[in-house]
C-alpha cells in the first residue's frame, strides 16, 4: 500500500465522518464511528479494485480469446509457480493488514474509558428498558453529550441485540448473563435503536431512541423523570408511566387490538377470562394483573405479559390505576 492510496483512503474516511451520511453509510454519530467508516471504506475500495481486476480480465479474455473458426487455443503454460505464489501472497498481505486494523478498532469498541456513565439496558419481548443510576426507568435511552456511556445489557426472555446504526455499535443481550457496550456521542440529536437478533412477532418493532441531550440538559431531564409522581396528579403521572414502563407496547388505549387487551373503557366492566371465568375490572384486579399477570388472563390473549413484581412501586401502581380509570 503506497502513501498515495493511503492518503486517498484517509480522505475518503475523513469525508465520511465530517460530511455526515454517505450513499452507503448512515451519518456517523459516535466518536468511534469515523474509524469504523474509514475501515469500511478502505475495505470497500480494496474489494472494488479486486473486483474490477477480475471483471476486466474476464471481459478481456472472453473477447480477445473468443472461439473463432480456425483459431484453436494457443499453447500457454499450465502452471507458473512464481505467479501462483504471488497471487497467494499479495492477498494474504492485504488481509493481514485488514485484520490488524479491524482488531484495533474492535479493541476500542470493547474498552470503555474509565468513569463512563453507566446505564442498564434490559431487552424483553418487544421493548427496551433503560435503568439509570437513580432508579429512573425509561423506554428511550437519554444520554449527555460528549460523555462516554457504558451500557450493561441483559435480557429477560430470549436473546436480543442492541443495535444503533448511527453509532456503529451492536451487542447481544443474553438471558442469564451480562454483556457490555459503550459509546460517546459528540453531538446532540436523536438516533434509532434496533433489535438485531430475531426475537419473534414484533422483532421489527422493538425499537427505541437514543436522545443525546445538549450540555446540562441531561441532568434536568433525569431529575424531572425521577419526580414524576411528585410533580403531577396521579392520573397524569400514570399516563407517563404507561409509556415509560412499556405498557402501551401491548395495550392500546383507543379500543384497537394488540398483544394484550385494550384498556379503553374496561374499568368497572366484567371481562371473560381464558379459563372461562369472569372478573370485574376494579382496583384489585388491575393491581393483581400488574404484579401477577398470569393469574387472570382475558380470553383470547396469550399469557405473555411479564410480571412487574419488585420493579414497580405501590405509588406507581396507584397512578397507573388512576390513569386506566380515565380511559372511558
Amino acid at each position, binding site marked *: 500500500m503506497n502513501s498515495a492510496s493511503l492518503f486517498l483512503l484517509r480522505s475518503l474516511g475523513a469525508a465520511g465522518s465530517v460530511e455526515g451520511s454517505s450513499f452507503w453509510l448512515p451519518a456517523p454519530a459516535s466518536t468511534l464511528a469515523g474509524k469504523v467508516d474509514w475501515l469500511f471504506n478502505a475495505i470497500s475500495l480494496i*474489494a472494488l479494485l479486486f473486483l474490477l481486476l477480475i471483471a476486466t*480480465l474476464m471481459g478481456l479474455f472472453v473477447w480477445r*480469446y473468443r472461439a473463432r473458426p480456425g483459431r484453436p487455443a494457443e499453447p500457454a503454460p499450465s502452471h507458473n509457480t512464481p505467479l501462483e505464489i504471488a497471487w497467494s501472497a499479495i492477498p494474504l498481505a492485504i488481509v493481514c493488514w485488514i485484520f490488524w486494523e*479491524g482488531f484495533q478498532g474492535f479493541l476500542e469498541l470493547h474498552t470503555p474509558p474509565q468513569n463512563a456513565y453507566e446505564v442498564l439496558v434490559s431487552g424483553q419481548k418487544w421493548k427496551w428498558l433503560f435503568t439509570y443510576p437513580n432508579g429512573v426507568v425509561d423506554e428511550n435511552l437519554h444520554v449527555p453529550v460528549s460523555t462516554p456511556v457504558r451500557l450493561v445489557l441483559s435480557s429477560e426472555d*430470549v436473546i436480543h441485540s442492541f443495535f444503533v446504526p448511527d453509532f456503529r455499535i451492536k451487542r447481544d443481550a443474553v*438471558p*442469564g448473563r451480562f454483556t457490555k457496550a459503550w459509546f460517546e456521542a459528540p453531538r446532540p440529536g436523536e438516533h434509532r435503536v434496533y433489535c438485531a437478533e430475531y426475537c419473534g412477532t414484533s*422483532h421489527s418493532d422493538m425499537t427505541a431512541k437514543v436522545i443525546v441531550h445538549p450540555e446540562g440538559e441531561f441532568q434536568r431531564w433525569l431529575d424531572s423523570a425521577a419526580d414524576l409522581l411528585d410533580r403531577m396528579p396521579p392520573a397524569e403521572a400514570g399516563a407517563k408511566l404507561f409509556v415509560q414502563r412499556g405498557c402501551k407496547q401491548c395495550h392500546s388505549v383507543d379500543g384497537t387490538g394488540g398483544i394484550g387487551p385494550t384498556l379503553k373503557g374496561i374499568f368497572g366492566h366484567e371481562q371473560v377470562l381464558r379459563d372461562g371465568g369472569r372478573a370485574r375490572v376494579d382496583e384489585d384486579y388491575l393491581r393483581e394483573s400488574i404484579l401477577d399477570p398470569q393469574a387472570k388472563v382475558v380470553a383470547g390473549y396469550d399469557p405473555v405479559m411479564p410480571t412487574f413484581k419488585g420493579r414497580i412501586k405501590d405509588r406507581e401502581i396507584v397512578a397507573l390505576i388512576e390513569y386506566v380509570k380515565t380511559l372511558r
Partner: protein
Amino acid sequence: MSTAEGALSVPRTGARARGEDYLTRERGFLSWALTLDHKRIGVLYLFSILAAFLLGGVLALLVRTELLTPRETIVGPDTYNKLFTLHGAVMIFLFIIPGIPAALGNFALPLMLGAKDVAFPRLNLFSYWLYVLGALFEVAAIVTGGVDTGWTFYTPYSTTTNTSVVATTLGAFILGFSSIFTGLNFIVTIHKLRPQGMTWFRMPLFLWGLYGTAVIQVLATPVLGITLLLLIVERLLGVGIFDPALGGDPVLFQHFFWFYSHPAVYIMILPAMGVISELVPTFSRKRIFGYRFIAYSSIAIAVLGFLVWGHHMFTSGQSGMASMVFSALTFSVAIPSAIKVFNWLATMYKGSIRLDTPMLYALSFILLFAIGGLTGLHLGTLATDVHLHDTYFVVAHFHYTMMGGNVMALLGGLHFWWPKMFGRMYSERWGRIAATIVFLGFNVTFLSQFLLGSLGMPRRYYNYADEFQPLHATSTYGSYLMAVGFAIAAGALIHSLFRGRPAPANPWGANSLEWHTPSPPPWDNFPETPAVEDPYDYSQLVYEPSVGGYVKKTAPAGAGS
C-alpha cells in the same frame, strides 16, 4: 442417429440399441424407487432438490413481496416470520446442501472416476430415502402450523416458541444423516474404486471438490446431529442444557450450531468450485491452470472451514480473545478461494472461449462469488462486523456466495451434464437467455441489499423505516426478474426432454471419462473399460458436424485403423 463412419473412432452411439441405457433398461415405479444405480439415484435426487428449490423459491418470492412496503403488504408478522424461516430451512437443508453432491455428484462421480457405481449402492438408496423422510418432516412442520425460529434455531427462542420446532429439527436431523451417508459413500468410492491408472492427481477437479465436501459432511454433520438432538430433548423433556434459568448456556447452542453450519457453507461451495473447474477449461478448450493449487486449495478450505465458526458470534459476548482468533482464521480461508478465482482466469487466458450456457453460468459464478468473497472481508473484520452483523449486508453476502456460488454452479453443471443424463440437447438460445436474465435479476435483488445493510437495516424484519422502501422495492423487483429467468431455464430443459435433439456422446468436447461413454450411459456405465487419460487434454478432440459433438482424432484416414 449417428452416421459417423471412417477414421473417426466414435464412441458407440450408433451401435447402441435404443432401450439399453440406464433410463430405459427397466421401467416402472419400483425400478426407480428401489434402484441401486447411482445414476438413477442421482436423477431422483435431482428432481427432489429441484422441487425443494421451487418451494423455497416461492417462499422467497412471498417474503420479497411482503417486504415491498413497510408493515403489512400481503401477510402479518407471524406469517412473515414463518415464511423466511421456511425459506431458509428448505433452501439450506433440502436444496443447497444435497444439491450438487447428491444430485450431480451421484450421477457424475462414478462415471468420472471410471467406476461402475459408488462403493455402497444400498447405502446410497437408503440415503435418498432418508432425504425423502426428512423432507416429509419439514413438510409436516409446514402443515402443522410452520415454524418461526429462523433456520438457525437459536435458543432460548427456539425452546420457548410454540411452533413446530421439533418436527423441523427432527427433519433436519434426518437430513443430516442422509448427508453423512452420501459423504461416506463418496470418500470410500474415491479411495477404493479408482480404476487402474486413475491416480489422485489424474482425477478431475470436480472429484477433488466432492472429496473435500464429503470430508466436511462426515466430520461436521454429526455435531449438527447432536445439537439438534439436544434441542429436541430440551423442548420435549426440559433438560435445561440451553436454559439459563436451569444453569444452562444459550450461547453454547450457537457454538455447536455454527461448528456445523459454518463448515456447511463449504459443503455448499466446494463442489460448486469443482463444477466451475470443469466448465472453465472445457469451454476455453484449454488445460486447467494450476491443477495442484486448485486441488490443494479444496482441501485447505475443507480444513480451515472447521476453525472459523466463532465469526458468527462477534457480538454475542464471547471473549475478545476468541473473536480475535476467529477473525484471523476467517481471513485465512480467503486465500485459497482467491487462488481458485485467479486460476480460472488464467485458464481462460489464450484459450478459445465459447459462451455456451454452462460457461455463462460459470462466468456468473466467478463474478458473483468474487463479490460474495470480497464482501466477506467487511464481515470478517472485527470493527466493521459489529456494525454489519445481522443486517441485510450479511443477507446479501451469503446470497452472493451461496446462491451466486452454489446455484450458479448447480445450473451450470446441470446444463453441462444434462445431455449426458437424459441424452437430449436443450435449446442453446433459451439457455443463454435464461442465464443472462438470472444474472441480471440476481444482481438487482442483492446489490440493493448490500446498501440496505450498510445503511443499518437489520435482517429478519417485517416492518422497516420508510427511507428503506425504495431499496426494498428494487430488491423485490429484482427477485421477480430472477424468477422469470429460472422459469425460462426450466422451460428450456423440460422442453428438451420431449423435443430435444438427441445428444452425442461428447457435445462439449470435454475429456473426463463420463464423455467417453454414450449419452445416456448404459446401466453399468461403460460399454468397455475406458482408458484413463488426462482429463484436461483437449488437443485430441475435434468437432464432428455429422455427430453434432466432439470425437477423438485418430490417425488420418487411409493409414489403417
